[in-house]
């Protein structure tokens, strides 16, 4: 496996800050907006965005976690069952502006499941999508993000990993490439 750093910790911080300002541009003081992170890794993006947004606007930003396990389209196409993480949405999403958040946008299937899971909680006014990394040209479904941290061109055999200083020790984004893939 060959590793290539596509965002270092400095750029990572800049990207998160840019996303924050883009969100503020569209959502103002977040009085009617909420951030919802997809389990498991989208939650990390939300945690960081929440910290930075609250520091900038000086107000609480409502956030939740959404688990999409039961809405996936690959149930029974796997060897072992998918075990769920927790969903934690302790507010009403009716008529809210929602920003759905994940770390990597790839085939779009996770987001499709996420939309289904989200609508089980009510009827939001609007749903937008934010992703740290957009692996473009690799979509299976017609889904695009409204806010993108960084766009990358990748092969199917490659893998993108978003790492966090709270978990892995350092903020960075790594592209893993298999060495023999011509």
């Amino acid at each position, binding site marked *: 496996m060959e590793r290539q750093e596509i965002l270092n910790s400095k750029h990572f911080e800049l990207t998160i800050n840019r996303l924050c300002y883009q969100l503020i541009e569209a959502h103002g003081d977040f009085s009617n907006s909420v951030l919802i992170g997809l389990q498991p890794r989208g939650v990390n993006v939300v945690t960081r965005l929440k910290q930075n947004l609250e520091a900038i606007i000086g107000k609480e930003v409502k956030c939740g976690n959404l688990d999409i396990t*039961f*809405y996936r389209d690959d149930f029974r196409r796997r*060897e072992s069952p998918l075990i769920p*993480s*927790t969903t934690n949405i302790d507010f009403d999403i009716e008529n809210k502006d929602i920003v759905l958040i994940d770390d990597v946008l790839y085939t779009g299937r996770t987001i499709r499941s996420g939309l289904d899971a989200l*609508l089980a909680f009510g009827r939001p006014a609007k749903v937008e999508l934010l992703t740290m990394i957009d692996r473009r040209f690799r979509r299976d479904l017609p889904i695009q993000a409204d806010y993108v941290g960084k766009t990358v061109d990748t092969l199917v055999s490659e893998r993108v990993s978003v790492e966090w200083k709270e978990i892995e020790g350092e903020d960075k984004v790594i592209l893993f490439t298999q060495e023999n893939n011509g």
Partner: protein
Amino acid sequence: MDSLSVDHVIGIKDLTKNDIELIFKTADAFKEVINRPIKKVPSLRDITIANLFFENSTRTRLSFELAEKRLSADVINFSAASSSVKKGETLIDTVNNILSMKVDMVVMRHPNPGAAKFLSERIDAKVVNAGDGTHEHPTQALLDAYSIREKLGSVEGKKVVIVGDILHSRVALSNIYCLKKLGAEVMVCGPTTLIPKYIAELGVLVEHNLRKALEWCDVANMLRIQLERQDIKYFPSLREYSMQYGLNKELLDSLPKEIVVMHPGPINRGVEITSDVADSKQSVILQQVENGVAVRMAVIYLLASKVKR
């Protein structure tokens, strides 16, 4: 291990501690789902489940049916009272006919012990035992243990007494296996005639005095007297049973600590438990019913992931 070690859920005896913990973990997520505005997930859209009830049931049957529907499975129901079983058809024939209609899973209650195992060895579909005679009732034991875990934080190290008709109770046997596997201490309590002779070999304590049993325990699971399974008289009268082994408010309030009161239903109010105990805040009887749906969703979900196309 993120997968059950078994292909059918016939009895708790066959499950490992890991299996039970996996079921509980999955049930936690389903419990959250059934408290949402839309209480349904699309996971089992392509699964068809037959509920075969060769013996009467209200709670278990409704609970299974609701669990299946909340997972979006297609459900067909069958009850022996209105079927060809009355016309002399054998179990295998009945089930094979139903399976020809492309059913992936069978949930069965049957009056004969071993019926679920018999079936699982002879058909292609996954089998969930919803009670086979006086043998096992695994999902009831799972939801009982799940309710204890929810109320007291964990099952390990807790003292649980099962009171009543241990001899005829599949709930008691499954509960003993389940609680022991999770590390609880188990005691059975009832009249000598209703305690099986070799029950202590399962590693449980035996007590014939209800007060002593209640003073010992953290949780009391009060079983129903199964008059329909009793072919001879095991005790002089229901009134006498109730005086010796019934739980009333006076007895409950006189105990040194607050215990949790459980009952698998249906309750015979005034026999094994009085109304004021059944409706008291120490009773988790209705939480047991709610947890039943979540636990059954978990069992069905985990088994359905093993269905191969």
